[in-house]
């Protein structure tokens, strides 16, 4: 099996195909601290792409309640258990975090889903360790999560005080998910028809419907379970990253690349999507003033989801700062402590870049900060806070300015009716 370089794992790993990298890569950052699971992203995707017959159970974008929710149910617990079974007590990280772009979280010393497959599976067609979720697991995207049900015997009404829910002295958070458009896609590796391909211009992973014969190898292989089978067409389907928008063919922007539907619909302003430059070795090329590059490689607040699976996913998350670290380290790797520290005490530049989230539907390629005076100094929850009136300017693909944000103290204009009142 060929060897490829995985910068998230800080080492080389086995992958069924030779490395091929796009010039730019579709990537995104979700700030979990902000997500309220309003499901606007979910419904934006559903109403755009998966509203047809046979797609009833398809949620290319979904938001699940962690730790107990999941779609399909228990997807991450199941694949983690399979990896643990294949490599007992060996799924650990070691080494020191590198300063550069290769191995920023240390070195993963365990087995990826590709490596574990070689040890545990015998069939030639089984290149990836995975499993096929049952029909029941696909049935309900949010079953038994956090919505209070109504009183017994009262129809079509939610419980007004949530008393039907037990109150636990514990924690949870919302995990919004779409296809990660991985650099080493497990779905692509597993497909016996070679129906799945990664576009050279933007790294979007697509599934050729004309080539697919519905063997469901991709459904089985994708550790994030973002490839889904459609019974009435007997083919599998997956997130297409709203590629007409990313290509800039949507008339709204006049040729400028535009963020996907799920990103644009996010009312919580948790999402930013972009196209990052890729280096020859598959890592991100240095692009200091690209907002996603800054969040992942400079501020180091955004981390990949389950990097230990080995697919080098391109979805990154700012982890929720209240959740116990052991759980987060399993989900996002050992970079969690630094990410939360940096997010809880944000630098001046990070505060500025966070202002770029959801200000425009257009994809930001570069930002610039014009520094302004300090406007506040104090403490918040025991941590020092300094605020500056910096102006952040976002630029699009052609280098044209998209928008700028700045900060002002609010001005209250008294109405004529109360002009003299104090």
């Amino acid at each position, binding site marked *: 099996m060929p060897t490829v370089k995985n910068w998230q794992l800080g080492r080389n790993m086995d992958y069924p195909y030779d490395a091929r990298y796009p010039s730019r890569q579709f990537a995104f950052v979700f700030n979990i601290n902000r997500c309220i699971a309003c499901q606007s992203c979910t419904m934006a995707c559903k109403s755009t792409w998966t509203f047809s017959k046979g797609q009833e159970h398809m949620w290319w974008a979904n938001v699940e309640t962690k730790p107990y929710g999941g779609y399909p149910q228990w997807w991450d617990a199941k694949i983690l258990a399979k990896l643990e079974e294949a490599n007992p007590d060996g799924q650990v990280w070691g080494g020191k975090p590198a300063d550069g772009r290769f191995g920023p979280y240390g070195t993963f010393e365990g087995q990826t889903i590709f490596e574990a497959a070689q040890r545990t599976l015998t069939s030639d067609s089984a290149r990836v360790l995975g499993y096929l979720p049952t029909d029941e697991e696909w049935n309900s995207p949010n079953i038994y999560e956090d919505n209070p049900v109504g009183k017994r015997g009262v129809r079509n009404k*939610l419980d007004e005080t949530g008393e039907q829910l037990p109150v636990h002295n*514990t924690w*949870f958070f919302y995990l919004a998910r779409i296809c990660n458009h991985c650099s080493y896609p497990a779905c692509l590796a597993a497909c016996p028809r070679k129906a799945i391909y990664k576009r050279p211009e933007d790294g979007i992973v697509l599934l050729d419907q004309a080539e697919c014969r519905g063997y469901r190898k991709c459904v089985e292989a994708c550790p994030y379970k973002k490839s889904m089978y459609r019974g009435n067409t007997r083919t599998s389907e997956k997130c297409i990253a709203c590629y007409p928008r990313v290509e800039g063919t949507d008339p709204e922007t006049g040729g400028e690349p535009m963020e996907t539907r799920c990103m644009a619909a996010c009312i919580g302003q948790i999402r930013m999507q972009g196209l990052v430059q890729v280096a020859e070795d598959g890592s991100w090329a240095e692009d200091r003033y690209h907002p996603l590059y800054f969040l992942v490689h400079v501020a180091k607040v955004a981390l990949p989801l389950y990097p230990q699976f080995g697919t080098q996913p391109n979805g990154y998350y700012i982890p*929720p700062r209240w959740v116990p670290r052991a759980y987060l380290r399993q989900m996002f790797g050992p970079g969690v402590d630094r990410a939360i520290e940096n997010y809880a005490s944000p630098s001046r530049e990070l505060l500025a870049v966070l202002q770029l989230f959801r200000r425009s539907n257009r994809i930001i390629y570069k930002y610039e900060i014009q520094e302004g005076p300090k406007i506040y100094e104090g403490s918040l929850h025991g941590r020092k806070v300094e605020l500056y009136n910096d102006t952040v300017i976002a630029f699009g693909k052609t280098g044209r300015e998209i928008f700028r944000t700045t900060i002002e103290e609010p001005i209250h204009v008294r109405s004529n009716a109360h002009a003299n009142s104090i």
Partner: protein
Amino acid sequence: MPYDDPEPEDPQELVGVELPGDEAVTREMAAAFADEFAQLGFTRAQILALYREAEYSGAHQAWRLLGEDEVARIVDESVGVWGRFTCIVTDSPDRDGEPEPLRFIRRRS
């Protein structure tokens, strides 16, 4: 078997899992929500209303565990920092020569 009794073999049956959690985690969760919503421009009254609302389970859970006074104190601290400024977003004109776009004035972040 009565209708409401759980069936042990039902794959859809809710499985309880015990997870670590203490007051410090709840307090941090409450502080995180207060910070984020204050940055989104919510006022003190709006944020407190959100904590009282049972449908916002995470915030409501913290409110029930910590109490109104403690949550109000956390919210006051967050609004005291993030609520004092307004974020101004100015879109660029789509093409040269077009009229200046509207300035969208939003509360911070």
